[in-house]
């Protein structure tokens, strides 16, 4: 067993994914159940309806599996720490959420997730289950707009799953659910920054290296490189740097547009800092004429005790706004 230099309250460092998963199922107080190796599926799902399945690697809690819930995802297929779920796990989850109308896979754009979900989909199709896939690629800093297929999926997952989850409570067909999920993705952009690495639970090793006097602008949630390092700066200096990257992207954000604005901590960045950043960011949004329909300030998309934040913007049209306003409840995100 590796020594754990990160001083974490765990048991066997190699069993973290299985154990946190067991804990997660318990956190649902009987509203969801364990399926197969490492999938969680809601009980009491709408019959004869298309299903919403999310998933990804563990270690980023409360995502991904914590976004399973009422008005959220129907189920999640969970991998090991920082590793996409295997095709077997995807298949088990697919079978469990399917209610005869097919299953939408909705997950972040990582090579491992794409390949494993694709193999899982092939297995599901062999069993006669219709599968569609929508890939979340909200991370503006990871590739230019003309190479969206190379963009990572990061904190934009939360508004996207919220919207798709609301759609899943109403959609008549898998196609309709996929259309709305894709629209939510198309309307969502995120830029993150990091100030400190998280650690790999199995080894206690940091996930990356970062000097004390710099911020990684546009970094991914595993420490993937973004647009570059900038000198450590104040919240008031940082907020416009992040927003400018989002504004410079291809999503039109014009005066009068309504948005969801999500300020996310990557782990150990404290809510105090998120609120100080929100104070810096909101006037900039308002100056551009954007109307914030809902603000979310929380740590939902994390990488262990990594420090850093991300801003996500989701633009709401009338259809998405109506879906947004539906209540939802999950371990990771709840709204009345």
């Amino acid at each position, binding site marked *: 067993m590796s020594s754990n230099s990160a001083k974490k309250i765990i048991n066997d460092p*190699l069993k973290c994914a299985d154990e946190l998963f067991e804990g997660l199922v318990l956190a649902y107080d009987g509203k969801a159940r364990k399926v197969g190796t490492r999938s969680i599926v809601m009980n009491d799902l709408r019959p004869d309806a298309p299903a919403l399945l999310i998933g990804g*690697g563990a270690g980023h809690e409360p995502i991904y599996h914590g976004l399973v819930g009422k008005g959220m995802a129907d189920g999640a297929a969970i*991998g*090991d*720490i*920082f*590793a*996409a*779920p*295997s*095709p*077997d*796990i995807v298949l088990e989850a697919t079978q469990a959420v399917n209610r005869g109308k097919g299953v939408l896979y909705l997950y972040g754009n*990582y*090579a*491992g997730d794409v*390949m*494993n979900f*694709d*193999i899982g989909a092939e297995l599901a199709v062999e069993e006669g289950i219709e599968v569609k896939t929508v890939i979340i690629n909200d991370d503006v*800093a*990871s*590739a230019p707009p003309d190479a969206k297929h*190379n963009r*990572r999926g990061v904190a934009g997952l939360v508004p996207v799953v919220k919207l798709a989850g609301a759609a899943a409570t109403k959609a008549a067909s898998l196609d309709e659910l996929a259309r709305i999920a894709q629209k939510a993705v198309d309307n969502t952009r995120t830029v993150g920054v990091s100030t400190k690495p998280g650690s*790999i639970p*199995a*080894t206690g*090793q940091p*996930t*990356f290296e970062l000097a004390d006097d710099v911020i990684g602008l546009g970094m*991914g949630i*595993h*420490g*993937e*490189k*973004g647009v570059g390092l900038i000198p450590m700066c104040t919240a008031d200096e940082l907020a416009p740097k992040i927003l400018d990257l989002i504004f410079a992207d291809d999503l039109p954000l014009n005066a009068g547009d309504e948005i969801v604005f999500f300020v996310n901590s990557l782990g150990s960045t404290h809510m105090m800092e998120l609120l100080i950043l929100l104070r810096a960011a909101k006037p900039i949004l308002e100056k551009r004429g954007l109307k914030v329909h809902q603000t979310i300030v929380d740590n939902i998309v994390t990488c262990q005790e990594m420090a850093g934040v991300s801003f996500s913007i989701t633009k709401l049209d009338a259809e998405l706004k109506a879906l947004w306003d539906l209540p939802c409840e999950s371990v990771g995100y709840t709204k009345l």
Partner: protein
Amino acid sequence: MPKTSLSKEDVKAMLLLACERIIAAEPQLSEADRNLGDGDHGLGMQRGMTAAKEKLNAAEPDSVEKAFSTVGMAMMSSMGGASGAIFGTFFRNGGKALAGKETFDAAALAAFLQAGVDGVKSRGGAAVGDKTVVDAMEPAAVKAAEVAGDALPEAITAVAAAAEGGLEASKALVAKFGRAKTLGEAAIGFPDAGAMSVTVIINAMKDYITA
């Protein structure tokens, strides 16, 4: 004594050595992934090869094909992550190319590697130069085709050198797939973790065959 042809039991023993070598190489493989990715490649490979070892040890293989595909299945279901899909596909598709073969020789090696790398390329979309496993697999497969008529010990030795050459060449590359793809120039100088695993596996095969 070097082996010119392997029985299905030999193939099992060779693959068990590959499992051990990967498990032992966990720290280096994770370290390589920390430079370019999220630092867990060695852990995933360790998980996969531990599962493969168990499955191999559970029963004598029915066939040469089965020995390889057992490893592929075990990796595919136990690992997850990019490398679970990649190495699962590699061993499963490579194994399928050996259907019906009673022994494993230089021709079989060539068939295995070609089918394996083809599967990986069509699954992940990467080509040589994209800083992925393909950078070690493809030169190995190309070399194996060239030496398919040679004796197995000579063939595997040449193939292992080709894989190592591919790994070495991968250092100079900018990644185009996987988590490292956004690193750009910063990726230069570091070898690809997945390609490193390929060389560990092929070197284990070489050591078993030439021992």
